[in-house]
């Protein structure tokens, strides 16, 4: 379990790949060399699709546009402006720069909190269509449909180009490999699996996606530049929608989320297509289409994992490969970070909070305060607006009116990750976490807000605040750091979720039915921890609960919501003994407490 393992594997792999590429032109004929050069550039592009789609879950149809931007930067510069080393570098930078600006724009359009993945996909679909229209409309300048060709370029030998293309592919693949195997890579997977949860842990999901898009755009533009400089041709189809979908097909067939699968998928299919030219003009596309459907429906992981398992089994038989790397973390306690909130006595305050759906008022003018070192329970029958209240407090985009102050700061229209930065930690009713992440990785994610994530390596130790550690100890999670979360018991998932929220060092803790589905013993343990958090760590805890006994045992104060309005608030005794509350609550009691 050496710390450098992924790095070492990647470097060995890169070295071997470079050696193969160095030797390639000496054993391959001119024709094969030639098609491989083009395939290498396309494979680099397919790899960016895999990082975006396979790892992060952004289904993009638009990567081809960045390839096209790079290719046209080369062709336009060499055709119209000048040719030489300075021009070439300038054109490459201009291409990458343009691609990055476009990618940022597309990212801004497609990735905002609450944007549906469908919408993002359609935006990426529109990109190559608009790109091609612009090229067509460019007339003689862009060469319109005919593209540009035979502009001055470097007529180096095929060998040289083979080495350039191969090296580019190996370099970007190695960097990408180290990146996706790093802590940041786990963050990408977390975004794919549960984007919302990431946002509430204070992870700027949209920012991460946009940055990724920008980087992928730059790599794609670089590949396009090389492609165009080598082939001496650009045509609108290089940035078109069809290439965009072909990239997805290569990625799916190769195996999404495997990085190497899509690279070999792209090379394999492109080379096969070249050899079958003329033999099966229409049938080839038909066969690829059928294979694509079959893989998507029956083999969503693609072919790489199957081949990978074979190879690994063979490797292990020969004792070449160790067991797959699993991060284990040593955990140690740290002093809680000093929140700016230290001297704010009322970390959470709402003024006239409202939430409407059309004419339906789910929350109607809720004004309340939650203080340090207190457990404020929100009770009320189903449909009273309790969860909506939590949502409006933790996401600035949710409420229809009123104000929310966290540690004295108005949250405005902040997205959840920015509200989290103000000190709000929120847990959810359901317990979907990140299925394929381990307990340790989940906790690492939760520390992203404070510690960031290693972009090119993996952390070996985790610094967790004492309250989070206390939960880990109480639920025996401390010994399960390498377990994937889907294998945890329900109680452990609840515990992990609470530990994750606490790991973000919140000053306001919003808990939505933290004990739902737990055993009596587990409930008591959680209750003890919460009381301790409030007393010892002076946390402000806001809690939604149906279990009135639990509420009575641990609450400092109780707020009763009814039909979106604040019915009453007060001490436990005041509320429990109130006739008004009894009247309202008892009537619905049977239905609401399950």
């Amino acid at each position: 379990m050496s710390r450098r393992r992924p790095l070492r594997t990647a470097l060995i792999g890169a070295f071997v790949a470079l050696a193969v590429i160095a030797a390639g032109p000496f054993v391959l004929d001119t024709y094969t060399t030639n098609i491989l050069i083009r395939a290498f550039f396309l494979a680099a592009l397919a790899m960016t699709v895999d990082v975006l789609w396979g790892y992060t879950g952004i289904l993009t149809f638009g990567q081809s546009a960045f390839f096209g931007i790079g290719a046209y930067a080369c062709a336009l510069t060499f055709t119209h402006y000048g040719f030489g080393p300075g021009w070439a570098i300038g054109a490459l930078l201009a291409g990458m720069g343009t691609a990055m600006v476009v990618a940022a724009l597309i990212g801004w359009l497609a990735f905002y909190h609450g944007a549906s993945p469908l919408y993002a996909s359609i935006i990426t679909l529109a990109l190559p269509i608009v790109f091609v229209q612009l090229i067509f409309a460019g007339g003689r300048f862009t060469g319109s449909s005919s593209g540009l060709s035979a502009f001055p370029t470097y007529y180096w030998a095929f060998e040289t180009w083979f080495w350039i293309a191969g090296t580019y592919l190996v370099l970007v693949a190695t960097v990408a490999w180290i990146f996706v195997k790093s802590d940041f890579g786990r963050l990408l997977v977390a975004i794919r699996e549960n984007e919302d949860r990431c946002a509430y842990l204070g992870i700027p999901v949209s920012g991460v996606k946009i940055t990724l898009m920008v980087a992928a755009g730059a790599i794609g533009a670089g590949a396009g530049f090389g492609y165009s400089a080598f082939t001496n041709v650009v045509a609108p189809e290089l940035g078109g929608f069809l290439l965009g979908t072909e990239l997805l097909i290569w990625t799916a067939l190769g195996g999404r989320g495997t990085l190497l699968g899509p690279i070999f998928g792209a090379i394999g299919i492109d080379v096969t297509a070249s050899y079958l030219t003329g033999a099966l003009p229409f049938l080839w596309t038909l066969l690829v289409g059928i294979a694509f459907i079959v893989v998507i429906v029956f083999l969503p992981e693609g072919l790489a994992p199957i081949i990978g398992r074979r190879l690994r089994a063979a490797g292990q038989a020969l004792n070449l490969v160790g067991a797959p790397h699993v991060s284990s973390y040593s955990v140690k306690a740290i002093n809680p970070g000093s929140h700016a909130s230290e001297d704010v006595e009322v970390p959470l305050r709402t003024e006239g909070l409202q939430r409407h759906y059309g004419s339906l008022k789910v929350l109607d003018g809720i004004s309340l305060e939650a203080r340090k070192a207190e457990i404020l329970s929100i009770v009320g029958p189903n449909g009273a607006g309790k969860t909506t209240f939590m949502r409006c407090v933790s996401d600035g985009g949710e409420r229809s009116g009123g104000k929310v102050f966290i540690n004295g700061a108005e949250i405005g229209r902040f997205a959840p990750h920015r509200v989290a930065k103000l000190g709000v930690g929120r847990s959810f009713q359901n317990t979907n976490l990140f299925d394929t992440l381990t307990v340790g990785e989940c906790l690492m994610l939760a520390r992203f807000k404070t510690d960031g994530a290693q972009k090119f390596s993996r952390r070996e130790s985790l610094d967790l605040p004492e309250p989070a550690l206390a939960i880990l100890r109480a639920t025996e999670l401390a010994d399960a750091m390498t377990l994937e979360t889907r294998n945890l018991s329900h109680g452990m998932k609840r515990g992990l979720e609470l530990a994750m929220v606490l790991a973000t060092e919140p000053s306001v803790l919003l808990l939505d039915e933290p004990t739902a589905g737990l055993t009596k013993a587990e409930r008591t343990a959680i209750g003890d921890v919460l009381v301790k958090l409030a007393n010892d760590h002076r946390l402000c805890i806001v809690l939604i609960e149906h279990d009135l006994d639990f509420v009575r045992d641990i609450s400092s104060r109780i707020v009763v919501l009814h039909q979106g309005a604040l019915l009453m608030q007060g001490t436990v005794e005041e509320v429990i003994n109130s006739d008004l509350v009894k009247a309202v609550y008892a009537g619905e009691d049977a239905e609401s407490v399950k």
Partner: protein
Amino acid sequence: MAILVLDMLTTSLILFVVAAGLMIILGVMKLINFAHGAFLTVGGYTAMLTTDAGVSPWLSGPLALIFGFFGGLLIERFIVRPLYDRPLDAILATWGLGIVIGQLITLGFGREVQFAASPLEGTLTLGAIDYSAYRLAVSGIALAIGAGLTALLYLTRFGLNARAVIMNETLARGLGIDSARVRAFTFGLGAGLACAAGALITPLLSVDPNMGLPWLVNSFMLVLVSGVSIPSLLLASLLLGSAQVLVSTFVSPILGGMTIVVLAAAILRINPRGLSFG
């Protein structure tokens, strides 16, 4: 001026009828059917075969509807149903399906541009102006289809079930609605509508294996902007379709071709709920 208004109206209604099948599927199944373009193409070929067989061209729409419906049921069963939990994969599978349908049509009919006879030739005189008779007829049929769909959704048992599934599938299932059946029927209906739309627009155009593709992206944009309701799809079609005609007429037809995409993206960025009512 009158011609401009008619252009805007007819273009919008054609867009509406082309996007209707896509919207039904998106609403109930929460999936974007990328084979929509291929379904339009199938409708075009159905119209061609119908008129070639000497059947009245007026019947090509209904025949395409029936053919599309049963084809849709089969596709739903074998390709879409396994992917209910993976909506993005369903997009890709339907895209693959679009490729396969396109290639099969190419193998069967060749890439030649072919024609379906138009039920109405020439122009209709409206006061001082002549206007393409069939465009007016298609617009009327589009409105009728819109009304029919509304009736189906609000006056029938299926409509009630479908609306329940649109609003909250879990709850609907809890109420004893067979949501799998609703989904299957919806996909059939959506496919049938797409084929019928293809058959309807064919007399204005020509038939070739890629005829549906140019309509695909605009349809996506319209249903994303409109959300799931027939009046709001009509509204979105009228607004964006008119914008397209205006830009094409007064600025440039090339920019006109991008109008819907760009406007829709902007509308959705400003208001993620688009133009949907309520």
